[in-house]
């Protein structure tokens, strides 16, 4: 198909205009030069990158091996020294899980410390090999760091959102709030929206649009929750106010919404 098109174009060019061999040759020459130059630049960039990547990989591999050796050594040494038993004796609790015993934790921590050290040294070597090259890779590295920080922020935000959502859900269910799930979802999305805004801001993406969108979304969720809670718990609030006005100054308040019975205090849990 392409051949047919090429033949057709050639014939049409031949028919409409006279050939300009000198100009064509000059254009092709310039294009070939440009292509050669860009190819050279890519090659030189690759040549500049490759030692850095190699240094990074070697550093990571070497420190991982050191970590494995150190971890095994520590595990064996601490097991021989009966660290778990000594700690359990001092703490009065011998209930270690095999995977969470102090010996296993120390050995694992030493391994990951070595891996982290290898990563840091590898990145430094990578950075050093780039410092001689163009400014673009250093910018790229800086942005990569930001992306890593943003990822940590995103993970932390998601965990906090999940924890708070569960706390609110259990608390609201125990307080007999019918909209417990809605409240829990609202809290979860509040934290997630906040996290997303922080992540985008950290990545310097979106600019003022993110701030504006965050403000609108956050305010909207808060307003929705306030309306839902306000409308849904009128009875609860009025009961609470009545109780406080009737029993102000007493030693301890009775459970606010713990279901006991329909006949007053005939059930005593303690």
């Amino acid at each position, binding site marked *: 198909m392409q051949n047919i098109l090429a033949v057709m174009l050639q014939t049409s060019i031949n028919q409409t205009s006279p050939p300009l061999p000198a100009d064509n040759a000059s254009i092709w020459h310039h294009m070939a030069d440009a292509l050669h130059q860009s190819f050279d630049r890519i090659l030189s960039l690759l040549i500049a990158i490759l030692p850095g990547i190699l240094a990074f990989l070697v550093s990571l591999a070497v420190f991982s091996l050191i970590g494995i050796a150190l971890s095994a050594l520590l595990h064996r040494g601490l097991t021989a020294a009966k660290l778990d038993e000594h700690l359990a004796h001092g703490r009065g609790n*011998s209930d270690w899980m095999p995977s969470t015993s102090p010996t296993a934790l120390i050995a694992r921590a030493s391994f990951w410390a070595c891996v982290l050290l290898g990563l840091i040294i590898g990145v430094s070597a990578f950075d050093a090999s780039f410092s001689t090259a163009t400014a673009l890779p250093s910018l790229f590295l800086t942005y990569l760091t930001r992306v890593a920080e943003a990822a940590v922020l995103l993970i932390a935000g998601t965990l906090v959102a999940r924890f708070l959502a*569960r706390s609110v859900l259990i608390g609201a269910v125990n*307080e007999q709030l019918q909209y417990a799930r809605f409240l829990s979802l609202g809290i979860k999305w509040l934290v997630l929206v906040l996290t997303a805004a922080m992540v985008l801001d950290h990545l310097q993406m979106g600019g003022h649009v993110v701030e504006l969108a965050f403000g609108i979304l956050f305010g909207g969720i808060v307003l929705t929750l306030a309306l839902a809670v306000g409308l849904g718990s009128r009875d609860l609030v009025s009961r609470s106010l009545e109780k406080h006005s009737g029993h102000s100054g007493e*030693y301890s*308040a009775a*459970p606010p919404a*713990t279901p006991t019975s*329909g006949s007053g205090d*005939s059930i*005593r849990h303690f």
Partner: protein
Amino acid sequence: MATTAPSSDSATTSAPPGNGLLVLLAAMTPEQFEQVFASLTASFPAEDLLIASPNAISADAHSSLRIVSAPANNPAWTLTAADFANAGQLAEKNEARAILMLGPESGSLGPPALRELANAVLSTTDLAVPCYDLPPHAGLVNSAILYPLTRALFASRVRFPLADALGLSLRMAKCMADAARRFTAINQGERPLWPVNEATVAGFAIEQFDVGACVQPAGPDLNTILPLVAGSLFSDIKAKAAFWQRFRPLPPADNFTLMPLAPSADAVVDITLMLSAFQLAYSNLHEIWSLVLPPNSLLGLKRLSTTDAAAFHMPEDLWARIVYDFLLAYRLRTINRGHLLGALIPLYLAWVASHINITASGTDPERHIEAVAAAFEADKTYIVSRWRWPDRFNP
């Protein structure tokens, strides 16, 4: 009115009384204090009493009594780690032979009960525990969780492991003080301790005495106190796992029999609110429960969630399995411990509703509680097995 020793140093040493008994009173309101004082003076001769109290005491009214001041603790609804730490310290300083610890509601104990507790620890017993005669719908956390767990795991028939009054021998007081210091050292002096478990592990002699009716602590909020008490007991069980995993026979019940509970006017109770709490929790907390409970228990709960109030009955073995699975999840930290214990509350309310239904049908409440305890004992192999191999397949 003049007061004695309220501000004096807690290190003040007093000569031991004739019989070597030290009475330690917990922090309490003036009314509770006067009530406890009246019971004490009616129970013992004044020369036999050495009282330690954090309260300010009127010298005019109690001039014949020997009183030392105890370090002030925050008022609590039961005896706490700080109280046990003080008891050990004061017993040592005052060369006491035995200690009678009285909580805020101990004023309702009659003089014979106080004498029995004191005489037991002054002779051969290490831990004297009261057994209260409560109305059918009282002390339910104790009946649902504390008593069955303590009985199944520690092979003890003590009916009220978290009593408000205790008699301790000197070595028991020292043992409890050691256990308490672990918590007071990390600023957790308000946690309850488990003297029955400590005494069982130490191999000390335990005796319980029928003390009749008792005024119960006023107004502890279930949502706050149940996680506190259950968490504290789970933590104690976790710490003593090496002890309870071995089989120990339950001592015979011949030496002590509970008084049959008199039917009271509050025997009929509306369980609708408790059931709606359980149903609400079933529709909202199912996801969290499924992290903790095996499919078989979830199926049982599903059936219960659709049962109407009149026929609502939680099988004893299902309740035992639920408590054991929560205990295991507490140990493994399957989910956050605060969340875990919060998620137990609606299930406990379902058990309460079931217990009320059963007692309303004419069954003796004590018989049902014994059946629950027996279910815990029968299922002990399950918790031992899962404690050792938590990752095994569990349908």
